Each structure stands twice: as structure tokens, then as C-alpha cells.
């Protein structure tokens, strides 16, 4: 297992797990989210190729209702 930070919280994943597999495990539709890994945007087309490493910091975001400030 390797330790990563997922949306600010500690998270353990299988060594060598791809980002695509992680999204599958989390039951997230890759089409509806965007991922930042260590402050860099991960293009959707590379989710299968990205293998998660010890210490990776992931941000997984989506669109929510939002106008001003209160988002």
C-alpha cells in the first residue's frame, strides 16, 4: 500500500494503482470530474497511465451549483 492525500485527507491505495482504477474504486464517473495531481492538471486521456505514488496529493473536483462567493 502507498499513502496519498485525497482531497485533503489521508488515503491508502494499492501500490501501482492507476488513477483510472482509483476513480472506478471511488465510483466516480471520469467524465464528470477533473483531477489535479501534485498541483498539475491530469489530462483525462492519461488516467489509465498515471500510477499513484507514495505522497501523491490528489484533488478530484466537479461542478456544483454556484453563483457568487457562496458556491
Amino acid at each position, binding site marked *: 500500500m502507498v499513502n496519498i492525500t*485525497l*482531497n*485533503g485527507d489521508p*488515503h491508502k491505495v494499492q501500490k501501482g494503482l492507476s488513477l483510472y482504477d482509483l476513480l472506478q474504486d*471511488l*465510483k*466516480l464517473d471520469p467524465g*464528470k*470530474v*477533473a*483531477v*489535479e495531481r501534485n*498541483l498539475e*492538471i*491530469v*489530462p*483525462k486521456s492519461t488516467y489509465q497511465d498515471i500510477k499513484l505514488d507514495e505522497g501523491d496529493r490528489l*484533488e*478530484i*473536483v*466537479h*461542478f*456544483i*451549483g*454556484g*453563483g*457568487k*462567493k*457562496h*458556491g
Partner: protein
Amino acid sequence: MDNDSFKVAGMSFSSRLIVGTGKYKDFEETALAVEASGAQIVTVAVRRVNVMDPNQPMLVDYLDPKKYTYLPNTAGCFTADDAIRTLRLAREAGGWNLVKLEVLGDQKTLYPNMVETLHAAEVLIKENFDVMVYCSDDPIMAQRLEDLGCCAIMPLGAPIGSGLGIQNPVQIRLIIEQANVPVLVDAGVGTASDAAVAMELGCDGVLMNTAIAEAKDPIAMARAMNLAVQAGRAAYFAGRMPKKLYADPSSPLAGLI
């Protein structure tokens, strides 16, 4: 007037009202209000997915991104870096370049931080984003943003969420007069007449959220705003009568008994 479409970043829209999707009771109400407003562009926020509960309903399930143009915003960002990160993620999530930049400077007033806004706009435009920008009502700043390549200038009419109406018609008019890109009042509208005032000044559109979402009946207010924006635009084209200091009778005085 018949072919009076609103054009921004190479896209064309028949509605001049852009609505936010925050502060509603639930997604059903959001969808009904957006429908009633006639808006074709909706602002959306970018936030962390709740990884503990991925089955929570998502906005995209209620507002079809194929039907509405999603305008990701940076509401809640107080630095250029946060705004830039947010919009890079938004582009990857959505796959389009049109975004709304908003960098706030102060928690109490939510007034825009123009130094950070200018910096963020410069970076984003270099990265080929189409940037609609929330800004102060300062014509000099508006010009700078246009010179940088922003595709729409969106000065506030009053503080965000205040519902005070257009407090600064003189500055808004100056900004409209000099601009070669669309100018939209973003923030401050409280009720339908405020939206009409903005449009009568010659704005290309109005962006609002709270005025609809916090009305007693948001769906009815959405409809009112839809009509107000159209009425204000029509009055702008019609050209209002000059203001006079004294009365001027409408009926002829000749032939009075």
C-alpha cells in the same frame, strides 16, 4: 431587435441573462428557476468531490451541459493562483475554454481584488482561456482588462448578494461607452427593475444569482428577471424621452372648451 443576439467568445445567445446556480433549496428548484429565467449560460462552481459519498446527486444530472453553457467561476478565490488552479481544473472537467474570473479582495465587502484579477487574467489568456471577468466599476481597470484580451467585462452594480441595485450608473455607462467587448453587470441586482436599469444603460447582459435564489418564489422571480432584461434591452433600443423639469401635457391644448 429581432436578431439581437448576445455574442461572446465566438458564441451567440438569444438570452442576455446569465444566472448563477448556487443558494437554491435543491437541484430541482435550480433547474426550474434556470428554465424560467430563459438563461442559456449558467455559472457553476468547482469544488472537491465528496469521495465518501459519490452517489450524491450532481448538478450535471439536472442541468444538461449540452443544453446550457456552463460558465465555471472562481467564486471564493482570494488569490490569482487559486483562481488559475480552479479554472485549469474546470477546463479539464468540462472541456471548454469559456470561464468567469473572479478574485475577491475582502471578506466583508467581497469587493474584487483588481491587482490579483489583472495578474490572473494575463496568465489565463496566455493559456487560451476565454475570460469573462468580474471587476470593479473603474473604467481604467475595465480598459486594462479589455487590453489584456478579456472577452467580457463584468463590473459590479453593488456588492455581491446585497441586492442594492445599480449604485453606479455613471461608471457603468462610461465602461459601456469605451468597451469593444460585451459589458455585463455582475452582482448587485435585487429585483426586476434593477435588471431593467442595467439593460437601459446599454449593458450587453446581466449576471445574477441571489436576486433569484433568495426571492420568496425563486421560479417566479426568474421569470420576472427574464422579462425585465428583455424590457430593458427594448427600452435601450427605443431610446428614452428626454427628462424635463416641468410638466408637459399629453393632450393638445387647442380646441379646449
